């Protein structure tokens, strides 16, 4: 039973990270129907910026709290700046182009950003400081579910709630929904579609950076390649949950995290990814729109 619980909570932690990155995928996809392959790289850049900033601040003798706050904040700012710029360079000029073009552009962007960080920084793994403060939490069960894991899960849930509020109840959220439904109509009713798309990328990037910082401090090291694998997994999660749906992305993340966790725990970690992808294939075959996705009946 304890073992089951451990796997369950472990899967939850892992799923939270997928969910945070998947939110970015799902939002971007919802608005411009693009698989933003460079999203994983934004996550990586977020983590890198946090690492660089915390190292610099440590060197200049800032105290622990201000290091955590400042470096996270700067990382969020920078990753959203990157998300914004990537959209302006690689996707905006491609509105209305054949469908696959932005996808190739995104793959190109992803390769570019990886190598940019590789060249400007290093190919080595770097130790990442513990930016998540550790505290006493269920002392006797720490081996099951530690404070770091708690922070990760709670942050994810909070972020999802905030995002849902933002999208459901604010003006900008309404504009986003309108743009997702019909860009032309949105433009006609006076929504600045370009601005909305930029905002979407910025919000998505912030999520990715939060995910990046959390996972990097959980795992304790990063290199330039972490974004790619996490990106693919997160995209899988987004599709699993129903792409375009915010709770779907979170649920998809959790389901994927659990699948991997239980596959490892009860079968073998050799086939962890096989299980993850097989689940995806099965879900899409029997429920092509994903778990929470809305089935779009085609208009004829």
């Amino acid at each position: 039973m304890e073992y089951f619980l451990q796997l369950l909570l472990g899967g939850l932690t892992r799923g939270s990270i997928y969910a945070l990155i998947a939110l970015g995928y799902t939002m971007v996809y919802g608005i411009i129907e693009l698989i933003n392959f460079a999203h994983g790289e934004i996550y990586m850049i977020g983590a890198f910026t946090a690492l660089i900033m915390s190292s610099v601040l440590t060197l200049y003798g800032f105290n622990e709290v201000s290091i955590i706050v400042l470096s996270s904040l700067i990382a969020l700012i920078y990753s959203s700046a990157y998300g914004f710029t990537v959209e302006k360079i690689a996707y905006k000029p491609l509105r209305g182009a054949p469908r696959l073009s932005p996808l190739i552009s995104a793959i190109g962007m992803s390769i570019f950003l990886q190598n940019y960080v590789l060249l400007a920084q290093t190919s080595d793994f770097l130790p990442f400081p513990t930016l998540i403060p550790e505290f006493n939490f269920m002392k006797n069960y720490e081996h099951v579910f530690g404070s770091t894991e708690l922070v990760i899960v709670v942050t994810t849930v909070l972020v999802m709630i905030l995002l849902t509020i933002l999208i459901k109840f604010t003006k900008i959220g309404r504009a986003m929904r309108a743009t997702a439904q019909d860009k032309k109509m949105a433009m006609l009713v006076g929504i600045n579609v370009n601005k909305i798309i930029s905002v979407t990328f910025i919000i998505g990037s912030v999520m990715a950076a939060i995910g990046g910082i959390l996972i990097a401090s959980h795992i304790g090291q990063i290199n330039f390649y972490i974004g790619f694998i996490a990106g693919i997994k997160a995209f899988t999660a987004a599709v699993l949950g129903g792409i375009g749906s915010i709770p779907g992305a979170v649920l998809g993340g959790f389901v994927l995290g659990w699948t991997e966790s239980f596959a490892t725990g009860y079968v073998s970690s050799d086939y962890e990814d096989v299980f993850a992808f097989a689940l995806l294939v099965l879900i899409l075959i029997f429920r092509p729109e994903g778990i929470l996705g809305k089935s779009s009946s085609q208009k004829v």
Partner: protein
Amino acid sequence: MKCMMNTSLLTCILMVVMTVTLSCTKPESQPLKVGVAGPHSGDLASYGLPSVKAAELVINETNDKGGILGRRIELLIEDDVCKPELATNTATKLVSQSVHIVLGHICSGATKAALGIYKDSNVPVISPSATNPDLTQSGDYPNFFRTIASDDAQAKLEVDFALDVLKLKKIAVLHDKGDYGKGLAEFVKGFIENSGRAELVLYEGITPGAVDYSAVVQKINLSGADAVIFGGYHPEASKIVMLMRKKKMDTIFISDDGVKDITFIKIAGEYAEGVYATGPKDVSMNPLAVKANEAHKKTYGSDPGAFFLNAYAAAQALLNAIEKSGSTDYAKVTHALRTEYVETPLGKIRFDDKGDAIGVGFSMFQVKHGRYVEIN
């Protein structure tokens, strides 16, 4: 039809021209070409770039002294991204540039793919890091040498240590599904099962780069293993060790040369304490190793990376063999590699008939107070 005629005529002429140019003997004063191949970009670049630096250091030093056999040495650096298909291109390119000897490749898979090409062109190859046993033991590649112990030797050392010294009864074996890690783990598994003295409670591969390993760590915990033997590299090793310690598990962690890297200790910090890893015998007292490390620091401003000393030794062995044999002739050079000892940062080495280095000792290390300490 006319086109065909033209083509074949043209072909004939070109072939004649080619033969003439190719058969022109090159003057001896031409530089000696040393190829360095390995991953210099992509996710495995950090294993390939140190070798380039090692080669540069050794060759610059030799060139400063006036070269070898009166010839300067030229480096041909080629990237193979550790991919077999690119490695064959790399090898063909080097061969086309009539390279004399090659330092590389880094990954066993890429090395295997490239070796056939070098073999057909009579180019000796020394790898600082390709550990797959087949490379030497299959006898398929007489032109291959290496300055690193093969997987089975390392695996034997790990298992013997676990069984004889630590007297463990339950062992979990993990690997990173890679060429190196899984190859090693397979041997470890085989040795444990053959010994009959310990129980293999878990044998699994983990996915490198995955965001979390807690499930597999829980599984180790559940299996009740006394120790984990891990085949793979330090990034995954440090993640697993850190997770195990955070989960308050004191399972012994034994790993390989890929983990016996100072970066492992730097990243895992306090959690690294007590971890065992096999590696080349402690050479930190070896004046040549000290010199090589210092030269790296002076030239590149940082500590050397993975397989630096192996590559350094390989470069020295190559140059030594050419110098001692007095030529670049394939037979003479390989003979010299097999017979002539050379002083390297790894000790005094030569190669056996199969191509494995003699004199590169392997021993077990343990992390104590933030340092790898050799266990005797």
